C-alpha cells in the first residue's frame, strides 16, 4: 500500500532521515513512534507531500507519488493542532475540500452531514464556530474534514497531544474505532508509547532518523530488537555484570555478563514463581513509593537497582531498608551488544533485519 524506498530528507546541512525503507499494509493502523526530533513527523510530512525528499521514492499502491502535490496523493491529514479554519463554522470546515472540488451544494451537504453523524457531531454543532467546541469535538471535526474526501490514507500527526490525560485515553479508543469502521489505512505519529501500543496494528520505532524496529506492539515490547527500543518502550532495570553472573550461577544459563542487560519491571517479583523457575537474588529495599493499586519498589542487589511493582492487596510488604529477595527468570533478561546496541538474541536480530 505505502512504501518508503531509500528516502533521504535533509534540511541544509542537517540530515533528518538518512535512509528510510518502510512498508505499510492496506487497512493497517501503523504508528511512527519515537522521541522528539527523531524524524517521525518528517517521514509523515514526506508521505503527505509537504516535504520533498532529497533522495528516494514514496509509493502508494505501487505508484510513485514523490513529486505529486499533496492534494493529488489522496491522503487526508489530521494535524497536531487540528488546523481548523477559525473563520469558518464546523460545517464550512468539513465542506472545505468538497467546495474546492466544486461538488454540488446538495451533494456536499449530504456528505458533510453523513460524515458528521459518523464521527458523532450533532446538527447543532455543525453550525457552531470551531472555537466554540471542546478539544475532543475539534478533533472529531478535523477527522471528519479529512475523511469526507474519502482519502486512501489517513495521516494523524500527534492528534491527541494537546488534550488532557483523561480525554486522551477516551479519544484514543474513538480514533481506533473510527479507523476500524472506515477500514482506512492510517499512519499515526506519536511520541507516546502507551498510545502506540494501545492503538496500532504495527509500530515503527524511530531514533535519530533511523527505524530501529518494526513490529506488532507485543513484539516491540517483549522482543525489543535494540537497546534503544528496550529503553524507550516500557520500564526496565539495567542489570550489572555481577547480577547477570549470579543468574548464570544459579540457573546454569549462559547469559553474557559483558552485554548490556535489562529486565522489564513486571518481570521481577518479590514472590517466587509457582513453577519454581525464577531465580532468587537477595538484596535490600532502597525505596518504596505507593501508587494506590500497586507500590513501586527499588531493590539493590548485586550492584543493580531492580525496579519492580508489588500489588497493594492489604498484605504486609517489606519496608525501606529491610532485606528482600527478588525473583527473576533468566529467560526474561534482554541483552544487547555494548557497542552496536543490537540484541544478542539471534531470533530478534532476524526480526530486526526483516
Amino acid at each position: 500500500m505505502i512504501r518508503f524506498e531509500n528516502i533521504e530528507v535533509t534540511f541544509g546541512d542537517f540530515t533528518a532521515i538518512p535512509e528510510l525503507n518502510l512498508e505499510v499494509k492496506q487497512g493497517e493502523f501503523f504508528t511512527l513512534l519515537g522521541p522528539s526530533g527523531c524524524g517521525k513527523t518528517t517521514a509523515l510530512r514526506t508521505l503527505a507531500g509537504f516535504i520533498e525528499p532529497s533522495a528516494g521514492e514514496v509509493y502508494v499502491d505501487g505508484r510513485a507519488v514523490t513529486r505529486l502535490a499533496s492534494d493529488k496523493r489522496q491522503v487526508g491529514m489530521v494535524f497536531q493542532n487540528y488546523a481548523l479554519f477559525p473563520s469558518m463554522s464546523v460545517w464550512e470546515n468539513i465542506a472545505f475540500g468538497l467546495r474546492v472540488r466544486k461538488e454540488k451544494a446538495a451533494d456536499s451537504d449530504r456528505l458533510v452531514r453523513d460524515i458528521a453523524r459518523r464521527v458523532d457531531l450533532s446538527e447543532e454543532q455543525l453550525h457552531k464556530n470551531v472555537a466554540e467546541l471542546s478539544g475532543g469535538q475539534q478533533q472529531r471535526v478535523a477527522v471528519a474534514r479529512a475523511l469526507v474526501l474519502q482519502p486512501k490514507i489517513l495521516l494523524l500527526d500527534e492528534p491527541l497531544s494537546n488534550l488532557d490525560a483523561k480525554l486522551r485515553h477516551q479519544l484514543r479508543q474513538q480514533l481506533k474505532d473510527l479507523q476500524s469502521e472506515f477500514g482506512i489505512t492510517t499512519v499515526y505519529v506519536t511520541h507516546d508509547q502507551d498510545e502506540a501500543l494501545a492503538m496500532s496494528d504495527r509500530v515503527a520505532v524511530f531514533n535519530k532518523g533511523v527505524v530501529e524496529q518494526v513490529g506488532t506492539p507485543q513484539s516491540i515490547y517483549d522482543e525489543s530488537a535494540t537497546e534503544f527500543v528496550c529503553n524507550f518502550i516500557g520500564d526496565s532495570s539495567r542489570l550489572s555484570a555481577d547480577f547477570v553472573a549470579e543468574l548464570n550461577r544459579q540457573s546454569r544459563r549462559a547469559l553474557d555478563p559483558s552485554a548490556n542487560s535489562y529486565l522489564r519491571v513486571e518481570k521481577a517479583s518479590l514472590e517466587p514463581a509457582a513453577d519454581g523457575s525464577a531465580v532468587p537474588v537477595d538484596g535490600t529495599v532502597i525505596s518504596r513509593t505507593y501508587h494506590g493499586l500497586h507500590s513501586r519498589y527499588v531493590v539493590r542487589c548485586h550492584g543493580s537497582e531492580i525496579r519492580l511493582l508489588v500489588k497493594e492487596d492489604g498484605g504486609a510488604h517489606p519496608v525501606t531498608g529491610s532485606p528482600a529477595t527478588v525473583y527473576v527468570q533468566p529467560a526474561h533478561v534482554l541483552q544487547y551488544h555494548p557497542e552496536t546496541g543490537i540484541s544478542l538474541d539471534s531470533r530478534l536480530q532476524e526480526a530486526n533485519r526483516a
Partner: protein
Amino acid sequence: MSRTGASGASTRSMLRSPAVLVAGVVLTWFIAAFLVWPNANVLIQTFFPDGHFSGRAAEKLFSSQRAMKSLGNSFLLAVALSITVNVVGIFIVLVTQYFKIRGSRILFLGYATTFIYGGIVLAAGYKFIYGDKGIVTGFLASLFPDLDRGWFSGFFAVLAVMTFATTTNHMLFVTNALKGVDYQTIEAARNMGASTWTILRRIVLPMLKPTLFAVTVLSFLTGLGALSAPQVLGGRDFQTITPMILTFTNSPTSRDLAALLAVILGVATMLMLAVMTRLEKGGTYFSVSKVSAGLQKQQITNRAANTVVHALAYLLFAVYTLPVVLIVLYSFADGAAIQTGQLQPGSLTLENYVRVLTQPSGLRPFLISIAYSALAAVIAVGGLLFVARILQKYRNAVTTVVEYLLHIPWILPAALLALGLILSYDHPNPLVGGAVLTGTTVILLVAFVTVKIPFTLRMLKASFAAVNSSLEEAAGIMGAKTLYIFRRILLPIVLPAAAAVTALNFNSMLDDYDTAIFLAHPLFQPLGLVIKANTDGAEGIEGVSNTFVYTVLLMVITGVTMYLVYGRSGRKPGAPAKAREVGTASPATVPVDDARKDPAPVP
C-alpha cells in the same frame, strides 16, 4: 511543498505560482520607480550632475554659512535631545511604573497625551500657548510687564517641545523593558541589604541599558531630522538641516545643496540605525529565573526624596497636560478670548466647530487630509497584504533582497525621499509612462504610500507569521490553490490586524507636515500645511481657532483609533480560552513596539 536539500528550490517553487509572478512584476516596478530610482537620482544629481563626478555641491555647502550652521544646529539638537529625553523619559517611566507615587495612573494619562497629538500639531499647540502671542505668555506678561514675549523660541523652545514629544518612545519601550525585570532579583538585592537607590542604580537601570541605548539612538535621529519644531519655534537663529533642505529645494539653483544635505542626513540616519541594530543584537537581559515574578512598585523610603519626586512628577504632569487642556478649552473660545487670553464662561461657544465643519474653507484641508490618509492607508495595506504573505512564506535570496528594498523608507529620512521624488518626476519619466508627477496631487499620495511601506510590511508579516502554518497545509492537502487559500483562509484571519494597521497608518498621516511641505499640490493643501500657516498668523484669529478645533478633532480621532486597536483587547481578559487556542491574528497582535519611527509623529 518545501523541497529539502537544495537551497534555491524555494525560489523555483515560489515562481511556479502565477499570482506570485504577477505580484512580483508589479512590485519590481514599484520598487524601481519609487524606492530605488528617486534616491539613486538624488545621489547622481549631487555627485554626477553633468555625467561625471563633481564636488561642486560640497564646495557650495562649505561656503554657505547658513547651511553649515544648520548642520551644526542639527547635531547640537540631536545630542541635547538624546540627553533631555532620557532624563525626562526615565523619570516618567519610574514615577508611573517603578515607584509608588500617588495618582500614578492620572500621571500616566497626562504624560501619554503625546500619544494622541504630535508633529506639527504639537509644535503649533505649544506656540499658541507659550509663543509671543500665546495665552500663557500673555498671562505672564500681565504679571511681569518686562517679560520678553519671545521667550519661548530658538534652541531652548525647540529642545523643550521635542523633549516632551519624544518621551513616547520611553513610555513604549522602556516601560516594556521594565515590566520584564524579574521582581525576584529586586527582592534578592533587598535581602542582601541594598537600598532603594542602590537597587535602582545597580540592578534595574543596568537591565534597561540595551533599551535605553536604542531609544537614545531614536531620540538622536529625531533631533537630527527635526522639521516642524525648528520651523515653528526655532526662529531665524535656530534652523536645522531639514528646514534648510526645504528652503534649498524651493530654489532651482540650490537643489544640489538640498540633495547633499539630504544625503548627509540619510548617511547619518543609516549609521545610527546600524548602531541601534548592533545594540539590539547585544540583547535584552532576559530573566534567567524559571518562574519570574511581576514587578511590584517600590516605596521611596526617604520622606524628603519622596516629596521632591512627587512634586516633580506633578509639575511635569502640568507641563504635559496644560497645552492639551488649554487647546481643548480655547477651541470653544471666541476670537476675543483667544486674542486676549481671557477666558470667561460666556466666551465659550461651539461656533469654531460649526465654522470648521460647515464652511468649505475650514473643512477643505480636513477633507483633503482624510482623503489622502485614507487612500494611502488602504493602498499600502491592500497592496502589501499579498506581498507580505509571499515574503513571510518564502525565504530565499529574491525575497530577502525585495524585503530589504521595501525597507528603504525606514532607513532614509522623509526629506530625502521627498526630494528624490521631486527631482525624478519633474520631467516626463518612462518609469511612470512618461508622465510628470511633481506638482500633481498624485506625488504626495505616492510618498505617503511609500513612507508607510516598512511599518505596514512588518505588521502584516507578523500577522501572517502568527497564523498557524498547518491551516495552509490543511487547505492545500484538500486541493485549494495559493490564491484560494489566501482569500478563504488567511485573509479572514489577518483582516482584523490589517484593519488595525490601516487605522494606525491613517492616523499617522492625518496631520503630516514633513512630507506634504515638499510635495503637496498648491491647491490641495492638507491639514499639516494649513496648521503651519496658521502658526505664522496667515489667517489671523480665525486661523488660530481653526487650528485649535483641528487639534481637538485629531486628538479625538487618534484617541478613538488607539482605543480600538490597543484598548479593547486589553479590557477583555475573559475572552473564551478556546477562541484564543484557535489562534487568529487579532488587532492586538499589532505590537506597539514595532512603532519605531512610526507611527507617533514627532515635531
